[in-house]
């Protein structure tokens, strides 16, 4: 084994140098995100498996067609597009914060971190509204020959196939798995958004206290940024699997 001359006290990765010209923390953040991608991937694929095994699945445009303060107006895809744009925009402000961090511009980092936090809170509020709407919204459904009013929960799905009943079309109970998967996956994603907001708030406070200026670099903002962008990345796929197809 050749032993290159390494200055005493150097402990870079303990092997003498960073193999990827990147800091240990950032590399490990990437590997964490990769494993998280597999968790989300497994959830979404399991949802796909169940969906493929059913003869009937719920039409998302029929379930997600409302907008706050719009009453019963039929607006498919409208609310979820708003949520998507909120998240994309908060991703932009995050990457701008990282950019300003590279230039050691504390004031700008503070501004963009604050905008990112507000974007995250706005997204969570939208999700809270949507969950409430699903969990409390009553829909007519034909159960064992008589009409009932059901909410959408993990055990009830009022968006099944329609049958003729007393001369008009009435929905029957749909696959239960719809509610379970919807609340499980958007809930797990929402939890990631929530923890992302917490991380961003911590970073904002640390920026304001000047910790990163003392340290000489804003790499923590970059790592928090990686996590935040990942949340946006997952939403792109949740958006696809639950709302678009």
């Amino acid at each position, binding site marked *: 084994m050749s032993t290159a001359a390494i200055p005493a006290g150097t402990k*870079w990765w303990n092997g003498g*140098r960073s*193999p*990827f*010209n*990147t*800091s240990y923390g950032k590399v490990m953040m*990437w*590997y964490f995100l990769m494993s998280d*991608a597999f968790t989300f*991937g497994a959830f979404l*694929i*399991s949802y*796909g*498996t169940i969906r*493929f*095994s*059913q*003869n*009937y699945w719920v039409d998302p*445009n029929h379930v997600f067609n409302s907008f706050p303060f719009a009453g019963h107006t039929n607006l*498919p*895809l409208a609310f979820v*597009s708003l949520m998507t744009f909120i998240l*994309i*925009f908060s*991703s*932009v402000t*995050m*990457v*701008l914060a990282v*950019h300003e961090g*590279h*230039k*050691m511009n504390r004031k700008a980092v503070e501004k963009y971190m604050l905008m990112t936090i507000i974007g995250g809170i706005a997204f969570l509020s939208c999700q809270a509204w949507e969950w409430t709407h699903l969990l409390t919204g009553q829909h007519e459904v*034909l159960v*064992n*020959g*008589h009409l009932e009013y059901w909410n959408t929960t993990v055990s009830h799905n009022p968006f*099944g196939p329609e*049958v*003729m*009943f*007393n001369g008009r079309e009435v929905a*029957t109970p*749909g696959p239960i798995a719809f509610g379970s998967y919807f609340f499980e996956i958007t809930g797990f994603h929402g939890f990631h958004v929530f923890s992302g907001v917490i991380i961003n708030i911590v970073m904002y406070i640390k920026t304001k206290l000047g910790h990163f200026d003392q340290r000489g*670099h804003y790499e923590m903002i*970059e790592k928090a940024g*990686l996590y935040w*962008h*990942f949340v*946006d*990345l997952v939403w*792109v*796929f949740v*958006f*696809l699997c639950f*709302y*678009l*197809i």
Partner: protein
Amino acid sequence: MSQHTISPEITFAPDHSSGTKQIWKTFWLLSLLTVIELGLGLAIYNIHKGEHPNATLVLAFKGMVCILTLAKAYYIVSVFMHLGSEVRNFIMTIVVPLALFIWFIIAFLWDGESWKNLRNTNGGSREYKKTEQHAAPAAVEQGAKD
């Protein structure tokens, strides 16, 4: 050399010559892709509303939406997460394991499809016939009210 002194082991410094132009360009690109996706989503919605939905067309539109989603994912990871400017070998340690998804998706969706076929044919013992397992009341429709 004002900053980037994270550690002497790291010699990489981000390139800021283009300013924030690339970030905004990516933002508009992502927005455009999302708008196209929404357009396709609305097209699927309108096809479903019609008398005889064209299944092939719906499938084609859904496929296009999937491809656009992968494009969005690429831009987020490559530009926003700066993976595109990392060392190539590092990119490979992230991207190569994700190739497992190719098998993962095909195998499991295939499994779901086969599950449906088995159920619709009673494990192959009868002709393929769709049964709505949750639509029990269908038998007592039409004036079944007492």
